[in-house]
């Protein structure tokens, strides 16, 4: 059993589509003896590369879901978390990025830094993930790793430093010169297994010396000892490694490796760099929130003697049931341990513990802190935190924002209907911001989420993974209604239709409430309404809030005070007072100047500064308010507040405005008043719809 955390690495491999990420992963698995043969991504042999487990990925030749796999390289335990490279898959990406401590950024030596590389790199930066770069495909025509290194500096703002130079490029690419050891490394044999280390060939000596100087100059910034050693001419390999490591961990330096995964060149050297320069789990700070203490931040310690804290970051439905990928942040997990799920507040026993190699698995008895492993048959959702009993930490905030957009979907046929149910069940478990329900009025299935793309991804996955084809309605923004001033009511509900009648009178006022959705205040004195009927009044008002009269959306931010009323000894009842309250509300609501509220999103657009004028313009056209623009040289970030209803199709607009070089993220910020002109339109639309229905 390996327990030495210093020998553990959790890494992600991130790249632009088609820069060879899957091929690289495949080779890593091969050299680490996890698989015995090499397959190609778009497999000629029909088997396909090992990491691509979902159908969709196979078809597109890309990787979407983040499967984790464990390999061993020179005594180091490396967990590879396959991160989705696509910007739309936010929740998946964010979860994957949380659990990894370092990453390899794969770049194509011909295409260089592409828009997607920019996206994934930005995401890594956001999560403070130290990176090393691998310039792949050096065997391709037009390969130019030096140009790509320069792009890393110019386009991504990395302090990128070559720690290798290629021996030959294009079809002459044979290996690399290691600038630390100053040796030539060749990868011989059909599958590059035979590594031959020799002196640097004569024609590369000068270049190697020159590039080594550049490397040492950059690297010595991170180590005084190395700087001194350089002056005294006593530079050792250890000192260089240490300095590179320091710079990498603080993300102030990006060491650059070179090779061609497809031609089996340079992968082993890259693995050496991974274990040498990327952090161990103890070198990364991880924060949990203490739910017993108002979500106070607590620093977790990668110490196996501390109480256990683990995060479930990925669920997978396998043939034997649900598999839950977890990362242990603190303490350790043993088979038979009891753990507590802070979200569901349920305890469970750890049954089978598993190390995953994509589709094959291996049973283990314990997982140490820092490790990534999988549990079998645990009922939980993605993002759940597991604690040792007694602890109540959560790795993510328990606050789940309410969905801001909804879409009606209907299955195309019977099979689709069955499968759709299964898919929805699964997705809602995976992603708390994705919800679904059946609208009682239209009897349609409604899915809700945080944005247009968010829902698109699930519709697509339904089709691919569950064979559920659905018809999709028009996206609907979740509007709200609210009042803007106080209004009084005094309403009598009276009905006399033989037998016992109904009687109730309620009086009082409604007023805007700045915090919270609804408040009910009873200030009746002298029993004008008997106490027993007060809850019925409350219930009546509440039910009236479900659907506002402007556009039929829920009413929020309202305080109802009742201060007078009347009852009848025989004809009054709960029902009578409920009706009275509803009537009273309907009387007061139009007088309280109701307004329509719409979800306002916090939008952040990142892209090359040269396009910022277009970005400003696009936000301005969408009723957006630019809060700030941060110019970091070649790149800038624009933060804005934009109504959700104006954000439909923004990704397409942005792409065409910026040649696909900018990306945006958005999240719900608040509800804001809809401008008068739009409000009138919405009201008219609602009334037309109502007319049609009746």
């Amino acid at each position, binding site marked *: 059993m390996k327990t030495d955390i210093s020998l553990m690495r959790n890494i992600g491999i991130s790249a632009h589509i088609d820069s060879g990420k899957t091929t690289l992963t495949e080779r890593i698995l091969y050299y680490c003896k996890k698989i015995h043969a090499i397959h190609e991504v778009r497999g000629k042999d029909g088997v396909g590369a090992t990491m691509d487990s979902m159908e969709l990925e196979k078809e597109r030749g890309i990787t979407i879901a983040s499967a984790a796999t464990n390999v061993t390289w020179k005594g180091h335990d490396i967990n590879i978390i396959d991160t989705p490279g696509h910007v739309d898959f936010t929740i998946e990406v964010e979860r994957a990025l949380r659990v990894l401590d370092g990453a390899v950024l794969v770049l194509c030596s011909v295409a260089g830094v592409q828009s997607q590389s920019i996206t994934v790199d930005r995401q890594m930066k956001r999560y403070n993930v130290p990176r090393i770069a691998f310039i792949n495909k050096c065997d391709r025509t037009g390969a130019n790793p030096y140009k790509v290194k320069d792009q890393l500096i110019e386009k991504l703002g990395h302090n990128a430093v070559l720690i290798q130079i290629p021996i030959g490029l294009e079809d002459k690419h044979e290996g690399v010169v290691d600038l630390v050891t100053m040796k030539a490394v060749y990868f011989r044999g059909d599958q590059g297994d035979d590594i031959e280390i020799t002196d640097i060939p004569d024609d590369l000596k000068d270049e190697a010396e020159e590039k080594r100087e550049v490397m040492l100059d950059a690297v010595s910034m991170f180590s005084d000892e190395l700087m001194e050693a350089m002056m005294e001419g006593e530079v050792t390999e250890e000192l260089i490694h240490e300095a590179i490591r320091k710079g990498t961990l603080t993300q102030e330096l990006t060491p650059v490796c070179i090779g061609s995964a497809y031609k089996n060149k340079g992968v082993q050297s890259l693995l050496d760099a991974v274990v040498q320069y990327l952090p161990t789990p103890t070198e990364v700070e991880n924060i949990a929130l203490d739910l017993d203490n108002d979500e106070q931040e607590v620093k977790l310690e990668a110490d196996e003697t501390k109480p256990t804290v683990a995060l479930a970051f990925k669920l997978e439905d396998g043939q034997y049931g649900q598999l839950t990928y977890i990362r242990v942040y603190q303490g350790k997990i043993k088979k038979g341990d009891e753990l507590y799920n802070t979200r569901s507040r349920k305890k469970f026993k750890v049954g089978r513990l598993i190390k995953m190699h994509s589709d094959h698995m291996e049973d283990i008895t314990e997982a140490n802190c820092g490790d990534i492993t999988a549990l079998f048959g645990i009922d939980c959702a993605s993002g759940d935190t597991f604690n040792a009993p007694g602890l109540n930490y959560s790795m993510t905030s328990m606050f789940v924002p309410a969905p801001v957009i909804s879409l009606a979907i209907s299955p195309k046929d019977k099979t689709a209907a069955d499968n759709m149910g299964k898919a929805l069940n699964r997705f809602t478990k995976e992603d708390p911001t994705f919800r679904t329900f059946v609208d009682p009025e239209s009897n349609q299935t409604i899915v809700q989420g945080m944005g247009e793309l968010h829902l698109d991804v699930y519709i697509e996955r339904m089709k691919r993974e569950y064979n559920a084809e659905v018809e999709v309605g028009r996206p609907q923004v979740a509007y709200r209604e609210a009042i803007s001033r106080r209004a009084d009511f005094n309403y009598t509900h009276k009905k006399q239709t033989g037998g016992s009648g109904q009687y109730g009178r309620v009086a009082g006022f409604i007023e805007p409430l700045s915090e919270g959705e609804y408040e009910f205040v009873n200030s009746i004195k002298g029993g004008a309404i008997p106490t027993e009927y007060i809850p019925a009044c409350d219930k009546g008002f509440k039910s009236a809030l479900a659907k506002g009269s402007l556009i039929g959306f829920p009413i929020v931010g309202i305080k109802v005070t009742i201060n007078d009323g009347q009852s009848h000894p025989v004809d009054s009842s709960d029902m009578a007072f409920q009706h009275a309250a509803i009537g009273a509300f309907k009387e007061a609501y139009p007088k309280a100047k109701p307004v329509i509220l719409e979800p306002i999103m916090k939008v952040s657009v990142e892209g090359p500064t040269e396009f910022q004028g277009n970005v400003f313009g696009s936000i301005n056209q969408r009723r957006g308010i630019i809060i*700030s623009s941060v110019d970091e040289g070649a790149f800038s970030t624009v933060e804005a507040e934009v109504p959700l209803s104006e954000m439909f199709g923004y990704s397409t607009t942005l792409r065409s405005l910026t040649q696909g070089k900018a990306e945006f993220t958005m999240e719900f910020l608040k509800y804001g008043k809809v401008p008068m002109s739009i409000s009138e339109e919405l009201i008219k639309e609602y009334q037309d719809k109502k007319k049609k229905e009746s």
Partner: protein
Amino acid sequence: MVKAELNKRSPLRVFEKTINGGVGKGNIGVIASKKGVGKTACLVHIATDKLFRGRRVIHVSFSQKVDHIITWYEDIFKEIAKKRDLENAVDVHDEIIKNRVIMNFSKGGITVDQLLSSLKAMIQDGNFTANSIIFDGYDISAAQDVDVQKLKNFARDLGLEIWFSSSLKGEDPVFLENGVPEDLVSRIDDIDVLVTLKFEGDFVRLQVVKDHDNLETKDMNLRLEPKTMLIVRD
């Protein structure tokens, strides 16, 4: 108090009066003091006053993070709202935010051309017709003549006023007899309005050193309130 009343009674009216109604379109104003006296607070209050009066302001900064500038604005707004017991403070806040943009340039060595091109993009493409631009942290005393000229032309062409903060060097900066800080002597012809901040006992006093064509030190009868950093009357 309602917004209109608040504007009428703002100490910034006193401020404007002493500088002949304001810096003016196409002109340059400078707030100068040594480090840590309250230049940013002053500029944010000046900007907030403009926002309260429906003007549009771009705040240009050069710090590492944009959050703390926003915090400055939030704090100054809260203090003003509290002090004057502002009615509908939330609505007023939402309304004035629309007229404010913060542009931060975190990478050192940005040229004036790049700066102006970004500002132009905001004003023209972003359709944000600013009335004032605040440059907080741009060292105008060390700027090249040609750059200052470009900034002045920009202000003139777009019809807006520009405020700079100028950090005077040293613990005890030297001022000439006419009140002009030594660091700014070579620039004084390009500056239309120069206001200095100086500690006087426990508080910070505002003085006008240059008011358009008038190079004569006048007391503004204004100071910074130590706790809130608001500009207040003596």
